[in-house]
């Protein structure tokens, strides 16, 4: 079984490759030294305190949180409605429509960013928070749609048919039967959109108005000077937001799914 052992060792090495650089970011964010580098001198929370006292960073956090929350809500609502139509109804041209709705994944984000920016500018809509929000909705929508669609296929239509035959109208059926069954997917879709939006930099650099920064663009701007312990601390906070949140969300979704079956 030496072959299998070699493959396992290879796998461990890949895990290390993936996690070591990230672990170093977290480690260095607790460095008490003045400069964000090795050797470490001692552990301290000073860089997190500095983050809290840095107005630009706190402002970037507010922008990112608001943007991600709005993106999540809008994308999920659009995604659920479209998924219902695609899974529960038969109509001509379904394949074309599916491809069209998935198209934002297939188009490079840079191209999407340029097209949206220049088109809205031509309509006399300069870069603003609204442009940023529209951009984030368009690139998160297909992912939410795919997540909700995959879940909806697994929910048997008999439940809905039963509700209908007992006299519920389509709206009542949706809110009393479909939506509760779909809740884990709604949750997953929203988290997906939230973290994608919170993390985005490729499109955001095109769409953001001058003077407004999100957390990733703020980090990018700070990198221009040098890598400070503050960036590592900010990175640690980002990791907590974008990793812990989906994990908690998945736990909640699993709990929801379990309590229903």
């Amino acid at each position, binding site marked *: 079984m030496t072959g299998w052992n070699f493959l396992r060792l290879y796998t461990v090495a890949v895990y290390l490759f993936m996690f070591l*650089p990230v672990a*170093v970011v977290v480690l260095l964010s607790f460095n008490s030294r003045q400069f964000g580098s090795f050797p470490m001198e001692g552990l301290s929370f000073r860089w997190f305190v500095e983050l809290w006292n840095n107005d630009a960073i706190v402002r970037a956090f507010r922008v990112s949180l608001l943007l991600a929350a709005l993106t999540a809500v809008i994308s999920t609502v659009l995604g659920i409605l479209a998924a219902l139509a695609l899974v529960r109804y038969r109509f001509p041209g379904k394949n074309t*429509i599916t491809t069209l709705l998935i198209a934002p994944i297939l188009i490079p984000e840079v191209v999407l960013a340029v097209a949206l920016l220049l088109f809205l500018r031509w309509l006399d809509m300069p870069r603003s928070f609204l442009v940023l929000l529209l951009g984030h909705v368009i690139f998160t929508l297909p992912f939410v749609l795919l997540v909700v669609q995959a879940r909806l296929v697994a929910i048997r239509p008999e439940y809905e048919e039963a509700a209908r035959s007992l006299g519920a109208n389509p709206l009542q059926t949706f809110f009393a039967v479909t939506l509760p069954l779909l809740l884990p997917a709604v949750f997953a879709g929203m988290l997906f959109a939230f973290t994608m939006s919170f993390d985005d930099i490729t499109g955001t650099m095109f769409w953001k108005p001058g003077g407004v920064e999100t957390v990733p663009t703020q*980090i*990018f701007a700070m990198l221009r000077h040098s890598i400070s312990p503050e960036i590592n601390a900010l990175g640690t906070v980002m990791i907590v937001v974008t990793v812990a949140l989906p994990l908690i969300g998945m736990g909640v979704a699993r709990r929801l799914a379990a309590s229903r079956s």
Partner: protein
Amino acid sequence: MGETGAAARPWILLSPALATVAFLLVVPVLFIIVYSFWLRTATGAELPGFHLDNWQLVFGDPFYRDILLGTLRIAAITTLFCALLGYVPAYVIAMSTTRHKTLLLLLLILPFWISYIIRTMSWINILGSSGALNTVLVGLGIVPEPVQMLYNEATVILGLVHFLLPFMVLNVYVSLDAIDRNLLDASRSLGASSLQTFREVTLPLSLPGLAAGGLLCFVLAAGTYITPLVLGGPRQAMFANLVFEAVITQLNWPLGSALSIVLLVVLGAVVMVYNRLVGLGQIARSFG
């Protein structure tokens, strides 16, 4: 809604999403096609019309062609490394009999959730002049002073592989996990060695996943401009950097439009070839 509206119902449900995609994606892309034929004059004013100047520049100047070819090369090397590094872990997790399979997979695609910019800049902590590696090398006396390891093509590829590997692992895993184990047992019982079984059964059946992962890695790598800005030197500009330069720095929007369309057409052709050979449905499977 009465029963008479039943035929209209899917369209009512679809209309918000369709309107969003049409207004924020389809029309804007068509718009930049038209826009690429406009001109930006020396005074900064725009001249609508049908001018081929931007296209003559993009196709005539070897500068653009060289960067496009360089970008495709970097994306291809990145994809190759993602396949080499990603296939084995996906295989080991899929074939292992441990109870913690899902946990192992989750752990390996967890970096997908860790911020792209953080993962990219994390390599500066490792390879920078006062990073982990240089500290060790200098500390051990192997080199007298820190070595410059960053800001070249290799670090750009390194950053891209680190960013895109989870896409590859997930797609390969999905196709490996779907293989009927009886096929593998049958192959073994008919006398094939485990290596033969892998070559004749497992590998061919996992090719769609490998292709889906490869497509995602290639397209995402070829469209990036952040990684070269953070980990590359001045000569590592990729094609998307030219787009960013033209649109945001030079404010030459017609030229930026033409460059965007080149990127769209080239990567669109790659997606189209893939769709012919494998089918786009394979990618959607990873969401199930």
